[in-house]
Structure formats: structure tokens, C-alpha cells
């Protein structure tokens, strides 16, 4: 914990000391269609804790520090720095989790993103935007082992306001393609499979969420995300459906969103001895908690 406490406290202190301004995410996982206005900037920090694979100990913490800028009233760009912390023990998953691993926040990768708004949800009644992001990764976020990863992800975001904006619906559909190459590991357990040949993976994501402003500045919502993973040799390899509640606060200066995301169902490949047979626990976990804090300039 000492590995984590200092950087986390520093980030929290920094977050609380910054001048607060904000665009905002009503949800933790699904994304809205609005963009920053021209010349506006946003910085935000999010943490995602992924925990519980049904055996042993597994907790991972993803940190994303992002800066966004509105180039025009319809087009924004972003740059992100990703970090990873992991603590796993007492669990081996052949081909995926080669052994115990524990470290505090380490640099995981970089990302750049672009978002274009076609229709404004407030002006055109129905909002539509598209995003594309390019990512370079150096650590496998599942095992914590070294890996080189190049990823491109594209997504469409739809958004609709109801009740003059008191109720917001969001829908997402996206595809992610990744080239991945693992680093070799010495002293693997006997017979443990750890392929180091390059592989391609394609994910499809579809999600939706509904958020209601129940008091000034406060929103309560629910969101669901289905993710399917495809690989060349096996077709649909794994899938999972997560859902959970979101609590959002949006002030005139900053915003925060807290989401609990629980895996409801999952399928495909399972690890040896997996007891939760209706979940995907090879790469996913049973639970995720995500906190985002955002500021605009």
C-alpha cells in the first residue's frame, strides 16, 4: 500500500488544489456526445480499480491522466498518460496470469484521441459524435507483465436529452483493434503457456446509460456495457456484460463521477478450476470501481 498511497495522495491533493472548471462525464464507462467549445481545455484524472477473479487475490488499479482541448466548436483532441498498479497472488491462469505480481503505479502507456461532433444533443434534439483513439502500451493491464501493444479504437456516441436536460440518455457502439506482443518471462511454471508471438485482437463494445439529475448539481445514473473479444483462430473468444450505478456531481468549476461496475454475465474461455462459470474472468474481474474528476480551463 505504501507504493500506492503517496502517488494517490499527491494526485488527490493536486486535484483539490487546482482551480476548478469543467466539462463533464455523467457516466464512468459510457460516453456522451458533447464536446468542448473552441479554445476550452479540460484536465481530468480517473482511477479504475478492478478486483476479484473468484480465486486467489487480484486487484489492479488503472490511472488515466488526460488533457483535452477544443480545437473548434465541433472538434476536440486529447492526450493521455496511463499508469498501472497491480497486486495478484495465489492465482495462475494458463496463458494469461503467469504468477504473483505486485507493484505500485507504473507508466503503462500513452494515448491520443480525437472527437468530432456531428449533431448537438441540445440544439439538434439528438446528439451524435465519433471518437478515435490511438494507444501505445508497455504493460499488460491484466497480468502486469511487460508487453508491447498498439491499439486503435473508434466509437460512435449518441445522446438524447429528456425533461429539458434533467434526464440524459447515452448510447455507444465501438470497435477496438490491437496488435500485441508479450515479452518472454523466465522461470515460468512447468507446462505454462506464455505465447510471445504477435497477436491481433478485435473487441466490440456496445453500451448505454441513463442519468437523472435529482438535485441541483447531482445526478444518479445506471449504465451497462457489453464487450465481445474476437481472435482470428477462435472467432468469439470471450464476452462480458458489466452494469452498475453512477453518481455524478457537476459544479460550475469541476465535476466528479463514481461508478460501480459489476460483471453480470460473461462467457467463453474459462481458467482451470473457475467456479463462476457464467462469468468471463480470464482477463476481466467480477467488480470494477471507477472515479473520475475533471476540471476545465
Amino acid at each position, binding site marked *: 500500500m505504501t507504493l500506492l498511497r503517496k502517488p494517490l*495522495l499527491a494526485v488527490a491533493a493536486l486535484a*483539490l488544489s487546482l482551480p476548478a472548471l469543467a466539462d463533464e462525464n455523467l457516466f464512468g464507462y459510457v460516453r456522451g456526445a458533447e464536446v468542448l467549445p473552441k479554445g476550452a481545455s479540460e484536465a481530468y484524472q480517473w482511477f479504475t480499480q478492478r478486483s476479484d477473479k473468484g480465486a486467489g487475490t487480484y486487484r489492479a*488499479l488503472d490511472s488515466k491522466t488526460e488533457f483535452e482541448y477544443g480545437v473548434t466548436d465541433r472538434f476536440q483532441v486529447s492526450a493521455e498518460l496511463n499508469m498501472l498498479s497491480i497486486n495478484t497472488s495465489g492465482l495462475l491462469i494458463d496463458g494469461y496470469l503467469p504468477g504473483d505480481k*505486485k507493484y505500485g503505479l507504473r507508466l503503462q502507456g500513452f494515448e491520443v484521441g480525437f472527437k468530432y461532433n456531428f449533431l*448537438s444533443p441540445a*440544439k439538434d434534439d439528438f446528439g451524435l459524435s465519433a471518437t478515435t483513439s490511438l494507444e501505445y502500451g508497455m504493460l499488460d493491464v491484466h497480468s502486469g507483465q511487460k508487453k508491447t501493444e498498439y491499439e486503435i479504437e473508434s466509437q460512435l456516441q449518441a445522446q438524447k436529452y429528456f425533461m429539458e436536460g*434533467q434526464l440524459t440518455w447515452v448510447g455507444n457502439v465501438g470497435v477496438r483493434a490491437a496488435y500485441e506482443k508479450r515479452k518472454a518471462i523466465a522461470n515460468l511454471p512447468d507446462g505454462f503457456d506464455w505465447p510471445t508471438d504477435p497477436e491481433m485482437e478485435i473487441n466490440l463494445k456496445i453500451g448505454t446509460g441513463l442519468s437523472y439529475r435529482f438535485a*441541483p448539481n447531482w445526478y444518479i445514473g445506471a449504465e451497462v456495457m457489453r464487450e465481445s473479444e474476437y481472435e482470428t483462430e477462435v472467432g468469439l473468444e470471450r464476452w462480458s456484460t458489466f452494469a452498475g450505478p453512477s453518481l455524478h456531481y457537476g459544479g*460550475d468549476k469541476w465535476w466528479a463521477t463514481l461508478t460501480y461496475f459489476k460483471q453480470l454475465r460473461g462467457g467463453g474461455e474459462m481458467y482451470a478450476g473457475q467456479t463462476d462459470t457464467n462469468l468471463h474472468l480470464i482477463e476481466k474481474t467480477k467488480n470494477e470501481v471507477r472515479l473520475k474528476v475533471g476540471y476545465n480551463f
Partner: protein
Amino acid sequence: MSTRDWSVFLLPVAAIAAPAHAVDYLTVAQAQVLLVPGAKSFVEQPLKLNDEQRERIKAASGVRQRWDEQKVWRAERDGALQAWFIVDEVIGKHEFITYAAAISPDGHVLGVEIMSYRETHGGQIREAEWRKKLVGKTLADPFKLDEDVPNISGATLSCRNVLDGVKRLLVVHKLFLSRA
């Protein structure tokens, strides 16, 4: 590592308890003077609305009449009606936007003043340049952003709701004040 240990990164949530900084720019009296400078008195005449009346407003304006009492003043000069002064609230991105509108006895907008605005973007909504686009509007106008009133990027929802709110007040005037 215990679960409790990880709770440290929820620290920023503690700040959520702090209320947003509310900024009120105008009092009712200040807005009255700005919008109807020729009036010598403002007679408070709140308009109480039952469910059926609120439904009629929604049907005619396209937006909900959220309140069962609308704050209305008769702006008078030497006993003669100069204008109707109405204070209203609409939903902004985070909080209600409080504004006042003056409507002439024949049903056109004399002016709009933003009394309270607390949003991140769109401070231009308070500026005279944007608000004067609403002057002269009647129910015959389209009331569409970027059609007869410009949009303010980053505050589209606020613009849309103020625009819809002013249209609703014109409907309130037509249904309940024009013959009062």
C-alpha cells in the same frame, strides 16, 4: 493489501460535499428597473396555475410548466400597464438558471435579464449581445437556436432552455395575462 487501503483514492469525493459557488447577478428590483425603466411601480401579482392550466401551457409551448405558481409583476406607470415582468427558472447544465423577462401588453418580448447563472461555459448568455436577440420576439417567431437566436458553444443546453423558457412565458402571457 486490504480493501480499506484502496479507499485513499476516493479522497476527492470528500470535496463533493462542498456546495457549488452560487452567483446572483441581479435582484428582482434591479432586474425590474433594467427591463422596464419607465415603470413607476411593480405590483406583485403571482399567477397560480392548476394542472389543467399547466397542461395547456405545455401543449402550446412544447415545454413543461414546472411551477404551479409563476412570479409575475404588473409594471405600471400612473396606473397604466406598461409591461408584465416575470421571473422564471429553467434547467442549466448543473443548476437552475434564474432569469427575468418583460413582456409588453401586446405580447412581445421587451427584454431578458439573467439573474443567476452558475455554469462552467456560456457566460456570454448574460451579455447584452446575446440577450438582445430575444427582444421583439413573439409567438410567431421560430424560437430555434442558430435560426433566429445564435447558439453559444459549450452552453447549448442553457441557451436552448432559456429560449424555450421565454417562449413559454409568452404562452403564459397569451393564455392568462393578456386579458388580465
